[in-house]
């Protein structure tokens, strides 16, 4: 059975071009980039090129890029650097809908390290409460960390605007752009952010490689103390092959950006319109105006997410659900809860996240599978009768 992969916000296929670029460095070109002979330096040169490509994607300088192992490491390193740089400041700001890499770190800093944290709420469309955000900024604030775009709903935050305000107040600004990278244009200089996280496996590079942008002049203490790698900021022999893959993936992401915002967007919109049209009691979560071009978070009244996913899986369709049916807790995700999405559709929320590898035929198969699947589950549901919620 062919797989229809529409879970690209979770992870992506490694692009063939990326694999080709990496292959020689698994084999004959195994030198250590730090060694003092040409055989190693050839690898070193390749890493410098990769660093340049990552920088190019976000309009940074190459020496502003630190390679890390994952988005979580980038996020943690950024926040730790910020609070080390300003030990006297004891207040932090983030949002209620961040990825666990930020959310749980901030909770930890609040619970165990005595920081006061403002978790800025969002409205029903997933948009930040700007009043609370601005009024909570103070001289005591060490860092503000906001995601560029939300992984579940795709809602985009006004990063440029907030970064500017933060800058005026002398507050460091970090953005977790893991989900936004490769989907919308990112220009760190124009946006005025101090630090930015991005991750390889969301943009068709392998898992286990990521990067952190650190603006020149920002105090950034070493967080893996060891050798001189990454300008002494993160010691340890480079994950050479993956870094080379990440470089290629960034080059491709830049090339594909227009495609993402035309063809992929059109596919997503097609899927959305079809589902809204063909399945009653359906609603889209998040601000449809300011949203990633590839993401659709859609809730079906009176049915439950895992059951929908299992029926999709029967046809080889990969998507993810908006409820956390992974533990005894059956609660909808913290993002949907923060947006006050009603229970009736939150439990039945499915996220489709596309890439340029998807096709219109695939969207038709998804629609063709979902329509009877939802119908079937509703036939069984005690909350659905005569075509509506009861």
């Amino acid at each position, binding site marked *: 059975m062919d797989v229809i992969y529409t879970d690209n916000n979770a992870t992506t296929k490694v692009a063939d071009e990326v694999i080709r670029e990496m292959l020689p460095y698994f084999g004959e070109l195994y030198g250590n980039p730090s060694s003092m002979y040409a055989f190693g330096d050839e690898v070193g040169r390749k890493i410098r090129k990769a660093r340049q490509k990552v920088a190019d994607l976000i309009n940074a300088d190459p020496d502003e890029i630190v390679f890390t192992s994952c988005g979580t490491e980038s996020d943690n390193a950024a926040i730790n650097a910020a609070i080390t740089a300003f030990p006297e400041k004891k207040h932090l700001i983030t949002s209620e809908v961040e990825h666990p890499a930020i959310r749980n770190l901030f909770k930890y800093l609040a619970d165990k390290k005595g920081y006061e944290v403002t978790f800025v709420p969002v409205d029903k469309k997933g948009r930040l409460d700007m009043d609370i955000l601005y009024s909570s900024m103070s001289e005591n604030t060490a860092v503000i960390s906001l995601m560029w775009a939300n992984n579940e709903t795709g809602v985009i935050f006004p990063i440029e605007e907030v970064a500017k305000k933060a800058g005026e107040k002398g507050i460091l600004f970090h953005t977790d752009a893991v989900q936004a990278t490769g989907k919308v244009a990112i220009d760190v200089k124009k946006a005025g952010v101090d630090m930015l996280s991005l991750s390889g496996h969301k943009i068709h590079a392998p898992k286990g490689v990521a990067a952190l942008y650190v603006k020149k002049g920002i105090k950034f203490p070493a967080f893996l103390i060891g050798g001189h790698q990454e300008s002494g900021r993160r010691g340890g022999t480079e994950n050479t092959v993956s870094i080379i893959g990440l470089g290629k993936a960034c080059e491709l992401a830049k090339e594909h950006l227009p495609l993402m915002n035309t063809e992929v967007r059109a596919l997503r919109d097609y899927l959305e319109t079809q589902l809204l049209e063909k399945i009653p009691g359906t609603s889209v979560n998040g601000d449809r105006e300011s949203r990633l071009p590839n993401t659709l978070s859609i809730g079906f009244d009176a049915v*439950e*997410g895992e*059951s929908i996913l299992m029926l999709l899986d029967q046809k080889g369709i990969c998507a993810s659900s908006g*409820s956390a049916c992974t*533990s005894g807790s*059956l609660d*909808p995700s913290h993002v949907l809860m923060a947006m006050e999405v009603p229970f*009736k559709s939150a*439990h039945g929320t499915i996220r489709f996240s596309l890439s340029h590898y998807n096709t219109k035929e695939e969207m038709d198969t998804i629609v063709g599978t979902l329509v009877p699947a939802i119908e079937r589950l509703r036939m069984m549901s005690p*909350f659905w009768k005569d075509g509506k919620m009861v």
Partner: protein
Amino acid sequence: MWDYTDKVKEHFLNPKNVGELEGANAVGETGSLSCGDALKLFLKVNENERIIDASFMTFGCASAVASSSALTEIIKGMTLDEAAKVTNDDIADFLGGLPKEKMHCSVMGQAALKKAIADYRGIQILEKPGEMVCECFDVTDLEIIEAVKTNGLETVEDVTNYLKAGGGCGKCLDRIEEIVVETRNETAEKINN
């Protein structure tokens, strides 16, 4: 992905006895939309108190559907007295087991069955005895103690897997922990004496 047995998958994909049962004379309902799962059980009981037909409607995950389907298969043909003895473990066993995080689906089946039997016999299920611990899922301390004892539960997580208590807002977690510790200490003392 959950490690579901083939039997669970089979009962999810082709559930038996789905829908409202015409002529049902006993109905048991449990769960709610906010909890994330719910089950409505319909029984047709003859004058000898034998269950001649059963059906269900479920809102929930694959194991909730499978558990409901299994339950109706198990109890069809039983007398109400026999059915009253069916436990959540019987439901899970029928399915070849459930992931431990999904045990509450089988517990939901047992609860709906109890309510349906009470409904047929015209017994009102009175306010539950004991002190309310988890308001999100309507679970009392006595129910937790009972579950800890009969199923040998050891942690708060086990309790949540079985009864869902603690799986919502989480404000009852500390109290559940206390009850688990107390109950286990008591049981241990009894064994030692």
